[in-house]
């Protein structure tokens, strides 16, 4: 195979169509008379063909890279949209769930503070058991508190403090149905009894009954504290979200 020793300066110009018509004619005349130049031309033609293949390959690579980048971008956009939708859905669900009966009970229920005072003339033993129950109640040892409170009831089922704190303990333990039984045994006229009774009723799904109590509380001018709390809870019970999803 003959290699190129010296390149005809017009060769590239000829192959790249840069020669004027007379120059082209003259070059083609040389070609016909010079087999070495003809061979050189053929070698160059092959080189130009190789370069064309290189160009096609480069363009294909560029296109593939562009397509991959576009796909990646599309996937990223779709993932972002999906993530936003998920966050939105979770937020909506979270907003909705705070209006369920259970959530309202959880949000509003706070165990009544243990007050070590006598409401009436209890005996020393009764006071001692009540105080021990309150101590356990205060320490959130609800099972022990229940034992103390219940120990007072066989002798006097109308022992208001014992029944009231027993109801609170049961609600704190998540047993609002049993708490209602204890609250039934005490006077319904106390605002705190009405309040906890309404909460236990909500937790039991008896919202209509609870609303009646809350309306009464909200209209009680003598107790500002429970009046406000009752109004807030009534607003939540009456919210459009709750009406739409829970009624």
């Amino acid at each position, binding site marked *: 195979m003959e290699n190129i020793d010296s390149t005809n300066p017009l060769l590239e110009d000829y192959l790249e169509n840069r020669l004027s018509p007379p120059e082209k004619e003259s070059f083609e005349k040389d070609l016909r008379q010079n087999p070495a130049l003809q061979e050189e031309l053929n070698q160059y033609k092959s080189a130009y063909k190789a370069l064309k293949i290189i160009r096609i390959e*480069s363009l294909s690579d560029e296109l593939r890279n562009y397509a991959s980048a576009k796909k990646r971008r599309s996937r990223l956009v779709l993932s972002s949209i999906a993530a936003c939708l998920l966050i939105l859905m979770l937020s909506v669900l979270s907003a909705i769930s705070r209006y369920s009966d259970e959530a309202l009970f959880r949000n509003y229920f706070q165990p009544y503070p243990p007050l070590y005072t006598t409401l009436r003339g209890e005996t020393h033993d009764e006071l001692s058991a009540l105080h021990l129950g309150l101590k356990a109640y205060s320490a959130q040892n609800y099972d022990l508190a229940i034992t103390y409170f219940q120990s007072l009831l066989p002798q006097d089922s109308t022992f208001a403090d014992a029944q009231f704190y027993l109801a609170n303990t049961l609600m704190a333990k998540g047993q609002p149905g049993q708490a209602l039984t204890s609250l039934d045994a005490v006077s319904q006229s106390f605002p705190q009894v009405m309040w906890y009774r309404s909460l236990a009723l909500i937790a039991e799904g008896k919202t209509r009954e609870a609303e009646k109590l809350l309306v009464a509380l909200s209209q009680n001018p003598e107790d500002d504290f429970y009046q406000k709390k009752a109004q807030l809870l009534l607003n939540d019970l009456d919210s459009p979200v709750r009406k739409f999803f829970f009624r």
Partner: protein
Amino acid sequence: MIRQGGEALSSALRELYDRHHREMIRKLRKVMGSEAEDVFHDSLVALVENVSAGKFSGRSSLKTYLQGIADKQCLRRYRQTTRAERYVDRVSKSETHTAGPDDDFIDDQLRQSVNQLLTHLPPKCREILTLWAQKYSMREIAQKLNYENETVVRTLKSRCLKNLATTISENPGLRKMLEEWKTSD
């Protein structure tokens, strides 16, 4: 833009991709399945080559022209398969597609041999010739590769071209393949 080459050619290629991708892929997927994307890419490259070589007369729209190239690509790729036979039947009945535009078919062996050929060239030559093949101007190549000026690049390009021609002539197998390769130029 396509005829300018270089960066302008790349931009044109991306623009063509964006403009025709959705519709062409929808059509090609029906006959080519998962290979639709490859056919679309090859067709776009062939379109760019033809426009660059001044072979696109403008008598038909670019979209029709691209479809014609894609039809040829489909026929070539899957002549053996039943699915393609159905497509061949359909296409052969369509006059607009029988004399479709040129597309330079490169078989895998030739493709690999040319890629290997590049590795035999000095790195500088590889860079210059690859950019020049992509129709970057001498000035653009000088800027991209940090050469003093375009005259330096032109001289180097001539030397590299000679080097490439010599390397090919020393490889009779490759030279034969290239000589037999029917390019539309």
